């Protein structure tokens, strides 16, 4: 028995033009065309041909850019809105954490709001009474529970909302990006609670932009793009593909910008650097790399008149502006003798050994004394991502060894 079955779901949103609307009030009353006038002239397709099943006890994450249909899909799952076409079957009580504290009334106390919100979410009064202590305790709002909700900070508001929603005790939990507003202490607590749900065999649908959490928490990831399922499968595979896509998109936007500007570039241009590409080992352009993955930098060099004194250099910076690594052919004791015409240079890096982050690349060709022919500053970008969350600048290769008295398990082994 699948608790969630979606069959060919489609969702149109109607768009009404203003003129059209202005006419309706008259025509609707005169011609009794109220219902036909409520049909709009323009339609926006938010979801198309969405079909999937979720097995009991599984956690499925939905990722995608803004406007890709994630929230619409979640609203359909929650039963807030109906699909225009297709069929949806859900089994069991659903609790949707779409907006925390959506039903709060600012003028009345937290205590009363717990009852009201609980009942709106489908709990009985008796059930809320039973769970009241637990809700208050989890929200850490014991002191403020009798003051009006309007005096709460946004964090307190969220805490109360989350505590109520989580205590509805659903079979299916829908979570929409609600954890983004929480503070550093409460969010881990919420995530721990979500894990607890997972362990107790509940089905969870998780919508988030926090890809690290998505990868950790889910059994399956669905990537939505323009209202359609672009890809679904193992978390790491889908998240990687999605990040690759986002990177590519950033890259394209950056390239467009670069054509318009010569910003961050200077030099006398006797020797010119052009067509810079960051490639993977097979020669394909790439933006996101694993820390132990090979990376090649390729660029064309154009030299109209023969030059004898030239040095090629590169530098990698992190986004804080710290130099992670820099070197050039002179420092590495290459002896330059001559360059002319259209040539090509390739820098091969067998493994980056950098920690997660975005990196900026400087490339330059200059004279030994530093006189620049062509200097490209911060004009190229790549990203390093991995499951490891180590810190610093460079990932120094290392191994841990423990003597027999220390009970510690290596990563990847099953923990109980």
């Amino acid at each position, binding site marked *: 028995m699948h608790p969630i079955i979606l069959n060919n779901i489609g969702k149109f*949103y109607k768009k009404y033009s203003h003129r059209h609307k202005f006419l*309706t009030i008259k025509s609707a009353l005169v011609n009794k065309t109220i219902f036909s006038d*409520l049909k709009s002239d323009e339609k926006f397709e938010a979801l198309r041909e969405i079909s999937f099943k979720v097995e009991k006890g599984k956690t499925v994450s939905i990722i995608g850019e803004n406007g890709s249909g994630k929230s619409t899909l979640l609203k359909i799952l929650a039963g807030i809105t109906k699909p225009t076409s297709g069929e949806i079957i859900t089994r069991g009580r659903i609790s949707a954490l779409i907006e925390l504290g959506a039903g709060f009334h600012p003028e*009345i106390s937290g205590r009363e709001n717990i*009852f009201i919100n609980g009942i*709106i979410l489908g709990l009985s009064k008796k059930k809320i009474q039973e769970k009241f202590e637990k809700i208050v305790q989890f929200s850490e709002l014991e002191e403020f529970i009798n003051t009006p909700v309007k005096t709460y900070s946004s964090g307190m508001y969220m805490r109360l909302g989350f505590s109520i929603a989580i205590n509805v005790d659903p079979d299916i939990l829908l979570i929409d990006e609600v954890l983004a507003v929480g503070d550093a202490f409460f969010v881990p607590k919420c995530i721990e609670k979500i894990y607890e749900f997972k362990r107790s065999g509940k089905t969870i649908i998780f919508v988030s932009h926090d890809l690290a959490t998505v990868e950790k928490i889910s059994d399956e990831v669905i990537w939505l793009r323009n209202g359609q399922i672009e890809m679904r499968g193992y978390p790491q595979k889908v998240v990687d593909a999605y990040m690759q896509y986002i990177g590519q998109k950033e890259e394209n936007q950056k390239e467009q910008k670069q054509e318009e500007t010569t910003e961050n570039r200077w030099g006398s241009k006797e020797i010119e650097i052009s067509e810079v590409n960051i490639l993977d080992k097979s020669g394909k352009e790439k933006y996101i790399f694993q820390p132990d993955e090979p990376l090649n930098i390729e660029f064309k060099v154009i030299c109209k008149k023969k030059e004898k004194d030239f040095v090629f250099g590169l530098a990698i910076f992190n986004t804080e502006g710290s130099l992670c690594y820099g070197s050039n052919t002179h420092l590495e004791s290459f002896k330059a003798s001559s360059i002319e015409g259209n040539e090509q240079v390739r820098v091969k890096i067998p493994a980056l050994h950098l920690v997660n982050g975005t990196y900026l690349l400087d490339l330059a060709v200059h004279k030994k004394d530093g006189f620049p022919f062509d200097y490209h500053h911060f004009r190229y970008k790549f990203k390093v991502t991995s499951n490891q969350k180590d810190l610093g600048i460079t990932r120094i290769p290392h191994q841990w060894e423990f003597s027999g008295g220390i009970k510690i398990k290596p990563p990847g082994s099953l923990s109980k």
Partner: protein
Amino acid sequence: MLRKLKELSKYRQLILILISRELKARYRGTVFGFLWSFLNPLLLMIVYSVVFGIIMPARWPQFEGKTLYYSVFLFTGILPWTWFSSSMLESSNVLIIYGNLIKKIKFPIEALPIMVVVTNMVHFALGLPLLILFYIVFAKSLSSWVLFLPVAIFIQFIFTMGFSFFISALTVHFRDIKDILSNLLTLWFFATPIIYPFDSPHVLGRGWIKILLWLNPMTHIIEAYQYSFYYGSLPHWKKLSVTIFVGLLLFYFGYKIFDRLRDTFVEEV
């Protein structure tokens, strides 16, 4: 439809808590608190008493020349009218004000117009003891026709509820209704025998006014209050029966339209 209404009874607790929340929040922070429930119609009564009882006194035989009688007659009509007109005005807003709830939580949306009408009915009910007190202290004694009151309340509830479903659903799509409604209600107030008795020569003497008032269901509903309290008789039971029928019809179609437009609320509010 009956099945849907039955389903709604499952959400009794929700509707009740929405009403109590509305009542609690309404006068929170005010000095007089729930007293405002009858201070509002009371003040309106005083204004009309001064204008039409003292400044330009009308010589209607019903009031035997006593301003106090006129005041009590006024209050008899103003109290139920306030229930009706406040319900209408709030209905035109309620789905938009609670848009956040509609968009973020799955719950029976008809609970909102029901909440509006019942909340205003509670305010009305709080004013009733005051009305009865007026009759005991200032006016002639009450007859046993007062027992007819629950029937009048029931008819008004059905009529108001149907209209409320209709207004709340349509305002989501035609926001103009809100403005039209506030003007219409002023007109409607004067087209209902509240500040004047229906059985006055000025009304009965002019055919078109009489017909206009006849066609207005609120005329017969307000008259039901006036007869059971002020006159102590019920001569217009035939017209009232038609009003019940009209009220049920309005309730049926109001709910139908509401139900039909239900799925559009999430996107439009």
